[in-house]
């Protein structure tokens, strides 16, 4: 396995953020990530799929935060072991679209957003579509999801995954996410899983940090701030906006949320509590910048806490 690149300035930054815990954090950043799948409940029940794959030599562990109350079953599973030959992506079940290979922490935003049947949902940066298809399933293929990505290649990947999942309730859009401020639609739910420095993905992609630097973080922070205020303007009163990233940089996380709260007085953060998911409070200040105290209700997910990717998620409700 390739040695994971962790720049020295990255290590120093997280030493400042995590103190004594930094060595545990860095150790976990270099450990391989468990593969996981999400069952496509548009096509098959979880129990049935898992039984079929177990007969093929796979064993699974339920991802605790994916328990679906209505189904009475878990929809996400870590792959514990396999005696089967070949990758799980080469099974009949994958060909037919019975499951999606998706990282466990990436299943969290749709669960927090909780889109309901017949609602209107905006997925601002949707490609390649793991969360979009997850939301289609939660909505039982009803209502509307506008799944957007400005990049045509990424949009093709998104289209492929939507087709394979059988997601009928999706409109694909290709535009700069900021331009949704001009839309006439008021959305019940908005998911902004923002483009970010992807620090949290280093366990999956050994070169995720090969271009990492603080200038990149600041530039992304400006982009994310613009995006969040533009899309938030289209949220209905009483609606929910989930902001998430796969980075741990406060400039891309708490600072962005704090920025939104400064622009819109009718947004409040709701704490996130999911069974089996260990989260940490948001950071209240960083590099001499103080954030809105409400950001303590943001959720930080460190790799060492749930044996997952690094992640950040905030649930905002508009009064």
């Amino acid at each position: 396995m390739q040695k994971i690149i962790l720049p020295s300035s990255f290590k120093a930054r997280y030493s400042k953020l995590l103190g004594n815990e930094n060595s545990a954090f860095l150790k976990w950043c270099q450990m391989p990530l468990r593969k996981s799948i999400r069952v496509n409940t548009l096509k098959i029940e979880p129990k049935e799929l898992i039984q079929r794959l177990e007969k093929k030599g796979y064993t699974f562990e339920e991802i605790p935060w994916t328990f679906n109350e209505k189904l009475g079953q878990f929809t996400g599973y870590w792959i514990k072991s396999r005696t089967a030959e070949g990758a799980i992506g080469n099974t009949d079940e994958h060909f037919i679209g019975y499951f999606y290979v998706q990282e466990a922490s990436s299943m969290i935003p749709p669960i927090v957003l909780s889109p309901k049947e017949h609602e209107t949902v905006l997925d601002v940066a949707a490609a390649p579509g793991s969360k979009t298809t997850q939301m289609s399933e939660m909505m039982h293929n009803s209502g509307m999801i506008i799944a957007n990505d400005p990049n045509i290649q990424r949009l093709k990947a998104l289209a492929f995954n939507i087709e394979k999942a059988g997601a009928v309730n999706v409109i694909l859009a290709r535009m700069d996410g900021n331009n949704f401020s001009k839309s006439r639609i008021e959305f019940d739910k908005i998911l902004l899983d923002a483009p970010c420095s992807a620090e949290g993905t280093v366990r999956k992609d050994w070169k995720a940090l090969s271009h990492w630097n603080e200038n990149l973080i600041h530039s992304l922070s400006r982009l994310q701030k613009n995006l969040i205020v533009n899309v938030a303007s289209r949220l209905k009163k009483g609606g929910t906006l989930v902001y998430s990233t796969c980075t741990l940089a406060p400039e891309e996380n708490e600072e962005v949320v704090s920025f939104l709260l400064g622009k819109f007085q009718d947004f409040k953060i709701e704490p996130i509590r999911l069974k089996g998911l260990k989260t940490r409070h948001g950071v209240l200040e960083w590099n001499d910048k103080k954030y809105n105290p409400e950001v303590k209700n943001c959720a930080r997910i460190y790799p060492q806490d749930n044996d997952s990717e690094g992640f950040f998620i905030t649930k905002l409700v508009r009064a």
Partner: protein
Amino acid sequence: MTLTIMNKQIAEQYLNPLVDKFGISLDIFQNFGFLINGVQEKIWISTKECMQADLNNIRVDTMGLLFARCGKLPNEFKPTTNIMQLFGKHATKNVLNLNDEQKIKFARGLDFEITQEQQQQVSDGFVIVKHLDDYYGVALLQGYRLKNQVPKTRRIKKL
């Protein structure tokens, strides 16, 4: 691409081959609507909420899923792989049950011959393809020869 929403009557006319050839009742689509492109060769399925949304100032690429390609004749009506993986279970005729070896070939995008017994269960033209309770998609049958219609992007190299 411009898509036009079809009213119920027009949709039923276009979708009639689904009923005649495959025995799929149009009632199963009551929560959805259908759209057709300008040259009337492709049908899309979407939800009513999508079709009723005010999409001004949104740069729409596609809406819903491609449902079928239709030609001038009923036997040119071809439902897509993705749609039959979703709705094929409602079909009551022209469903071809593959054996283990054939399903592997099908998933890999290969053409192959079917058996006499299989050939007697379906008629020539487009058929829905399944293996046990799994619906794999659509193929074109000509005599004993099954011509694969799985899109290249969906084919798997090794099953």
